[in-house]
């Protein structure tokens, strides 16, 4: 009977039987995750329902209070805007990298990776120097007479979007490039031969085929953006506060650990929900 199952060609589609002995090599990693992730997360969860008193009070005030609601909304809005802008910029870049001769594209890759490996704080301060009222961009525009008043580029949504998009770009370019390079050019050729115009080829052939890369990149950016701290804190105004900054404020300044923990859990839950949706829609196997 067991043999029958193992010979079943559809076996891999069913829930696989997990042989615990085969997990042995993963044991160090599992222990590490348990000690440094499961345990602290559990104590965080406990804090959120016990401090200052037992119950769901923290969650109720988080979801019911106008200020906290605003911060939650800010968090999702900013994450969504950043994801969209990043995708729009990253797509042509990934495409270009896929069609350039590999010697040229390698130079571009080096530039992209180098920026990714530079310290986050240093890059964010760099943007401050560029974007502030007396910064390089505003001074230059005023010098050449294009504007007379400095543009508000920092301490607002514009600053946050610019700073975060810049940091997120590689996370979309890389998976997109992998997907786009994997598309057989003959398919596009076939579409052209059968009379599709370039625009049609893009919308009906190329874009659907690159969806897995778009999905993987966007999901990575969206989830990372939800928990972002340094960049919005430095480039945004207080009106653009995101959840991570609010958690820090609750824990460090107001010593309200219960509420901070509850906020952290909401963030985690939302992240998991998005991940689940993504896995259902695109499939775990295609996340690369």
């Amino acid at each position, binding site marked *: 009977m067991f043999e029958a199952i193992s010979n079943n060609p559809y076996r891999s589609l069913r829930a696989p039987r997990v042989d615990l002995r085969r997990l042995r090599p993963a044991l160090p990693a599992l222990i590490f995750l348990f000690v440094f992730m499961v345990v602290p997360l559990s104590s965080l969860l406990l804090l959120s329902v016990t401090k200052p008193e037992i119950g769901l009070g923290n969650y109720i005030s988080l979801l019911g209070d106008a200020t906290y609601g605003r911060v939650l909304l800010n968090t999702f809005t900013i994450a969504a805007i950043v994801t969209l802008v990043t995708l729009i910029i990253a797509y042509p870049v990934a495409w270009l990298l896929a069609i350039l001769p590999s010697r040229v594209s390698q130079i571009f890759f080096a530039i992209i990776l180098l920026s990714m490996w530079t310290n986050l704080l240093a890059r964010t301060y760099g943007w401050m120097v560029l974007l502030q*009222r007396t910064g390089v961009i505003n001074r230059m525009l005023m010098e050449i007479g294009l504007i007379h008043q400095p543009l508000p580029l920092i301490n607002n949504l514009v600053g946050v979007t610019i700073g975060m998009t810049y940091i997120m770009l590689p996370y979309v370019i890389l998976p997109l490039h992998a997907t786009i390079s994997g598309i057989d050019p003959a398919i596009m050729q076939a579409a052209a031969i059968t009379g599709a115009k370039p625009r049609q080829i893009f919308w009906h052939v190329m874009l659907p085929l690159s969806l897995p890369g778009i999905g993987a990149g966007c999901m990575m950016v969206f989830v990372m953006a939800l928990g972002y701290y340094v960049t919005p804190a430095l480039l945004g105004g207080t009106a653009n506060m995101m959840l991570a900054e609010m958690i820090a404020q609750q824990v*460090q300044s107001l010593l309200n650990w219960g509420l901070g923990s509850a906020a952290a859990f909401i963030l985690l839950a939302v992240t998991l929900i998005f991940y689940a949706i993504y896995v259902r829609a695109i499939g775990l196997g295609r996340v690369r």
Partner: protein
Amino acid sequence: MITRRHLLQTAGLGAGALALGAMPASRLLAAGNLTFVSWGGTTQDGQKASWADPFTQKTGIDVLQDGPTDYGKLKAMIDAGNTVWDVVDVEGDYAYQAAENGLLEPIDYSIVKKDNLDPRFSFDYGVGSFYYSFVLGYNKDAVGSNTPEGWADIFDTKRFPGKRSFWKWSSPGVLEMALLADGVAPDKLYPLDLDRAFAKLDTIKKDILWWASGAESQQQLASGEVALGKFWNGRMYALEQSGANTGISWKQNMALADILVVPKGTKNKEAAMKFLALAASPEGQAAFANATAYAPTNTASIPLVDKKIQSILPSEHTESQITLDMRYWAKNRDEIGKRWYAWQAA
């Protein structure tokens, strides 16, 4: 408020860790040692040189430097019954609140001499570490021929266009500034009329930038990113010294202190009290003032302070000085904090 003096703290933390690593194990295990915690940077350097080093010389007790001050961490170690910080430099309003919440050991005034301690900054559960003032600082290029002279000018966006900048965190100062500018008499400030203060701040809300560390405040003002604002006097002095084209108005400067406290449950209570005795002494306070240009909390220290430094201390500008009410803030800290951050985020 851990983020205070953010950049310096990180530097201090690194230096502290290095010092700890470099210390021979025998010294760590020595019977007498004491852990002193502050905000890092030049402040903690000054405290080490003025208090910790002479203390070790006098008593043979080693003083380990740690930091930065973190109220969450402090509370956690007291709650867990594992207090490893013996003397901590905290903000004044926090000291009064922590005392109220039973987090602090009472000061042993048979060891610490009370005689000349400025009663504004020392109490049953803490002695003044140093005091400073919030002053009006301005960029001379940005304000042009007009010179701002009082808090009301901060709200005058016609005469003084441009951004203004204040400390980001909920803490004594900005609300008081708004009320003074709105015509409230200094002796009628407390209890604060929060509605009136926030309404006044609303009138300039779109022109406000926030500074989250002393270095950031200096950068903002020196670069002209902001035209004027409310800053720490020591930072403004350092800015002028560095050649920046900035000025200070001392009118209605707002005095506020850092306070040294001893957390509940410390195993080195007696050594901690001896340390406080030295830190609060006329000599200890004068040495620190000379090192940092913060004002001493011991009134007998003034004659011992360098003449040149004396002239730039808040203790020389007391005619219109306002002492921020730390007891009021200790009681209302949480409630005001909630409202403050909600207002900022709105």
